[in-house]
């Protein structure tokens, strides 16, 4: 998705990986914390287990999130955090979206 911005033929690129609504929720939630476990992410985004798993797979493949599997006692736990690339991509996404809407207002 691209849009011509201003009169300088600048292309505002929107990251489609982040732009998908469910993934946007996941990344936004991870962006405001240091890390969260799978259950917390599921609860806060309101998405189903399969949904979160599927989206996390895509984000992990793009190296936007880091996933660590461990245990608390005998209970498995999956900790997810945004990578540096993921944070930078999200920051860029926010900037690009603001620029896009600023241009629309004009």
């Amino acid at each position: 998705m691209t849009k011509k911005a201003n009169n300088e033929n600048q292309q505002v690129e929107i990251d489609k990986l982040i732009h998908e609504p469910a993934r946007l929720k996941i990344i936004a939630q991870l962006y405001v914390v240091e890390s969260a476990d799978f259950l917390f992410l599921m609860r806060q985004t309101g998405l189903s287990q399969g949904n979160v798993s599927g989206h996390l797979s895509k984000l992990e493949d793009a190296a936007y999130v880091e996933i660590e599997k461990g245990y608390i006692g005998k209970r498995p736990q999956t900790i997810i955090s945004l990578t540096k690339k993921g944070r930078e991509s999200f920051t860029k996404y926010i900037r690009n979206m603001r620029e896009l809407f600023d241009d629309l207002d004009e």
Partner: protein
Amino acid sequence: MNLKQLEKNTAAVIFQTGLVEIGIGLMWVVSTLAMIFDDISYYIDILFVVPIIFMILAIRYIATPRMGMVKLARKRMRRNIWFMVTVTVFLVIMVILTITGNGHPNAVHINGRWIISGIILFICTTIAYFLNFKRMYLYAFLFAGAFNLSEEIRKNPGIISDGAYVYLIVSLLLIVIGCIYLISFLKKYPLPEKDSYDKKS
């Protein structure tokens, strides 16, 4: 999407459980007992660890398995530390002023009741602000009012001869509110079958 609000809500997620209200309610129960059994209140004060242990264990075994775990951002952790420092500094200043003011000819003689009510209000509203625990703004006035009322009853005993009844009412109120939130939380967040991330190729 408001990221700032999302971050605040994330940090305040524990307050959905009602466990904090129940814990504070139990503290008021201990205060009630300390007032009733005034002679052995030093020993009853030891019981204040019970609500604290309750909150720690309840959060660990009831809340966390249902809502998951989060590590807050460093900025939020620093803010929480500043909050604790602010409250501690304020308390220390109040103690110093009280000690140095006692017996001093130029000391301003303010009824201690109002000072303590002010401290209660300040601490509770600080908690509400820094920890984003909005209900605490209401509780601030409830607690300060309860303290004042109990002191008034002690001074002017009538039909109700003991200010402890006020503390008891506050404790029961908080425990009931906490239980209502807890039941709602347990219904909203049942125990998951498993915490599993199944990587899909």
